[in-house]
């Protein structure tokens, strides 16, 4: 949970959002120690910008949404902008990963990957479904 001064910093960062972003949270009621804390973080985060919305689904019960977003673990947070598949985070977004999720929100909102022109050309030519998993450790 961000402390008050952190909330002010995050609120200032989120001012640059140009389009709405959904924070789509998947949880289960048992065998998920970090689901309650993740819900709290996301709820508080979503209050920091009118462009952010928070929604939550049960991994076992809300199968249509589970299929739609392709999640298979909890806690999961999919940061969804107006284009693309969104960026999925598995695990509680605390520590360094809190900064990552804020970056993901700005990325999804503003739609600017920051890639060079050459990289954009290369990436645009990918025609095969590609799953990129980045393993990290919260600090």
């Amino acid at each position, binding site marked *: 949970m961000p402390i008050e001064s952190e909330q002010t910093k995050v609120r200032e960062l989120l001012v640059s959002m140009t389009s709405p972003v959904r924070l789509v949270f998947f949880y289960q009621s048992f065998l998920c120690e*970090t689901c309650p804390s993740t819900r709290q973080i996301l709820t508080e985060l979503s209050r920091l910008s009118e462009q952010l919305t928070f929604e939550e689904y049960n991994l076992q019960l809300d199968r249509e949404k589970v299929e739609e977003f*392709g999640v298979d*673990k909890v806690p999961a947070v999919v940061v969804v*902008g107006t*284009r*693309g*598949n*969104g*960026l*999925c*985070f*598995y*695990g*509680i977004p605390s520590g360094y*990963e809190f900064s*990552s999720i804020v970056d993901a929100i700005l*990325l*999804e909102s503003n*739609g*600017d*990957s920051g*890639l*060079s022109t*050459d*990289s*954009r050309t*290369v*990436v*645009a030519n*990918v*025609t*095969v*479904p*590609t*799953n*990129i*998993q*980045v*393993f*990290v*450790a*919260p600090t």
Partner: protein
Amino acid sequence: MMVENSNIRATVVSATEYPDLVRQYGITGVPKTVVNDSVEIFGAQTEEVFIKQALEAFGSDNGKPKAFS
């Protein structure tokens, strides 16, 4: 990358919360990136190197992902 191309899906996995995945993908340090269960990218890389290595997932078998070993 996923913003540039809807064929690309990206997930960030907290290694400490999913020990089964850590074992499955042989994670011994972070960050580690796995592309289509076939290409492994260790540590932080420059944009150019990362994209070059990531696209190796389609470097053989006519674009079909190679099996993870």
